[in-house]
């Protein structure tokens, strides 16, 4: 205790120093008068919390460790869990249940909640996509929003100029994003680590600035509006059908309800996420996926075995861009309106935060993180102001206590079947 006390005091003082300008002062505008209000309460709370946590850190940790031990070793429930874990169908079962729940959920939830979850699904797609480069291949890409933007603008422009439907545009948006990723990767993937991060950061900003200033094509800051919503085999979800179209409620002879469109979008997003999950799961077990991980582990060893690092990195970036493109097209279809403001650096940072928080390489963790990061601020609006602050805090704490993420990645290890016959 004697040793911890000064440390706890120091931590508290540091917190006070940091918290006063952030929490403790509030600019108060009254007509033309601007004054600084002092709001000491949050600062005091923060200082006390930090002080107490630091002071009792070790007993807390020990208690937590003991609790964990008792769960893993003594509890009969844990034994049962461990036994089911060895069953071959174990992997599929929870996923199936989760999927069923996800499909049924929108019919019971409020319209607003479904809408927010649709947004969360977009971030799930982005997180899963970015995870390929960051989590599997170990390349830090900071301009992921650029590929997202390419997908969104691809659909918006194709619909505006050529009247292409969402379903036709979706693969084209993916392909265009892939092309962008490929062209960017060609010169850039020779760089390592930080340099790659800086160049991709620049690329993200360049893309946004292009969209902002290329008025003729992109409409500049005004963006593109009236992007058609996706249809279900040609059935529209509006109140009235467009020329020559048919609407969903008329076709099925049910009353019009605005909820249909919302639920349809949600299910569409869910379908996209499920297919992306499937593809990534396969990728991970393929030679290509293995090569990504091997490259992350040791590039020199890879080269010494004849693997071409540039090609492998390029494939990771290209595939990752495809998923961003798909997410972008879906985003454009959901919003009905896009402008460059949706594709700023903050967006790239958000997706990266999702990947890091969820656990690099961990699909399930990323889904959880994506939902948490998008849904929580929406549910608690007052909290929204402190979103970035909370973000930063959570990131720092995670890096200290749980750098492997919320749900650490478990590699699908390839193993030899038990007692296989030795080769002749």
């Amino acid at each position, binding site marked *: 205790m004697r040793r911890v006390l000064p440390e706890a005091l120091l931590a508290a003082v540091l917190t006070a120093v940091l918290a006063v300008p952030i929490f403790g002062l509030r600019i108060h505008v009254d007509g033309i008068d601007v004054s600084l209000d002092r709001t000491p309460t949050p600062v005091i709370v923060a200082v006390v919390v930090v002080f107490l946590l630091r002071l009792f850190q070790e007993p807390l940790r020990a208690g937590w460790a003991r609790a964990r031990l008792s769960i893993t070793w003594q509890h009969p429930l844990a034994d049962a869990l461990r036994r089911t874990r060895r069953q071959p169908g174990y992997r599929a079962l929870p996923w199936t249940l989760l999927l069923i729940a996800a499909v049924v959920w929108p019919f019971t939830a409020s319209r607003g909640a479904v809408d927010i979850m649709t947004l969360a699904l977009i971030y799930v797609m982005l997180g899963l996509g970015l995870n390929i480069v960051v989590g599997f291949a170990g390349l830090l890409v900071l301009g992921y929003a650029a590929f997202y933007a390419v997908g969104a603008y691809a659909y918006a422009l194709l619909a505006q100029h050529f009247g292409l439907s969402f379903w036709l545009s979706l693969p084209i948006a993916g392909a265009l994003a892939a092309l962008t990723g490929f062209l960017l990767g060609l010169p850039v993937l020779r760089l390592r680590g930080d340099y790659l991060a800086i160049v991709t950061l620049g690329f993200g900003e360049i893309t946004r600035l292009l969209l902002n200033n290329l008025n003729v094509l992109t409409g500049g800051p005004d963006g593109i509006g009236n992007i058609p919503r996706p249809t279900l085999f040609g059935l529209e979800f509006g109140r009235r059908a467009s020329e020559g179209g048919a609407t969903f409620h008329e076709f099925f002879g049910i009353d019009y309800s605005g909820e249909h469109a919302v639920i349809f979008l949600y299910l569409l997003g869910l379908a996209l996420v499920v297919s992306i999950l499937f593809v990534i799961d*396969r990728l991970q077990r393929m*030679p290509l996926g293995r090569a990504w991980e091997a490259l992350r582990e*040791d590039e020199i060893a890879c080269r010494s075995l004849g693997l071409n690092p540039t090609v492998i990195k390029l494939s990771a970036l290209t595939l990752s861009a495809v998923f961003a493109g798909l997410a972008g097209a879906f985003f454009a279809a959901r919003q009905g309106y896009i402008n460059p403001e949706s594709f700023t650096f903050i967006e790239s940072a958000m997706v990266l935060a999702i990947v890091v928080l969820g656990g690099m390489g961990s699909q399930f963790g990323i889904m959880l993180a994506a939902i948490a990061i998008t849904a929580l601020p929406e549910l608690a609006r007052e909290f929204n102001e402190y979103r970035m602050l909370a973000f930063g805090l959570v990131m720092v704490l995670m890096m200290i206590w749980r750098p492997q993420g919320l749900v650490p990645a478990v590699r699908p290890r390839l193993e030899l079947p038990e007692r296989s016959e030795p080769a002749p």
Partner: protein
Amino acid sequence: MSRSLGKTAAAEPTPSPLLEVRGLSMRFGGLLAVDTVNFDVRRDQIFAIIGPNGAGKTTVFNCVGGFYRPTTGSVTLDGQPIHHLSSHRIARLGLVRTFQNVRLFKTMTVVENLLISQHTQLETRLLHGLFKTPNYRRAEAEALERAVFWLDKVGLLPVANREAGNLAYGQQRRLEIARCMITHPKLLMLDEPAAGLNPQETRDLDRLINDLRAEHGVAVLLIEHDMSLVMGISDEILVMEYGRPIATGTPDEIRSDPRVIKAYLGEE
């Protein structure tokens, strides 16, 4: 390149050597790490490079394997000049190596390590893997079979499903050799394969290397400090000191060479 080819053909009527190194020099700034090294490795030969620490042995390896671009000189593998190629292309031509500090894919299983090294021979096309075509399944199954064969060979079959990073040091060394051999190399380069091994493991390694040459027709180029291993196994030895080659010959010649004795034991 045609010049060096023509010269060898004229000089010796016997089949041209597998690896020819001519006038190889490597300069790092003001340091001449390797100074005009020449040597040949014949097919089926076990060729050793020895020398005190810092003599430039590993630099020679890195130049031959394409990890460094030599400042001057040429390296020819099977009649094809390779000194301008990047390391992964050289590896595909059949020249693979192990590393002084073992470089395994530590968080992957032992089997997976052997599958990655077969990457260039596998069905890696995207759609085949996504839809698990018969071609793809067959290629994967064959790769697994080859992996089992080599694991058995180096005695790692019982630990096939362990993480490579959790193996004992001697096992890691053997896995690294298996990972090279599974690519069907023409020339295997071993960088201090006996470092950190106990005497028993060193004897096993000796047997393994001889076995690889006899059964799989691979030539071996090795750097080693363990004199008992080098003298027993090598057909030819190159001694280096301060980046310069000071002697080449059979183990017996090297043992009695005054320059070598001077380099290793110092002058009276």
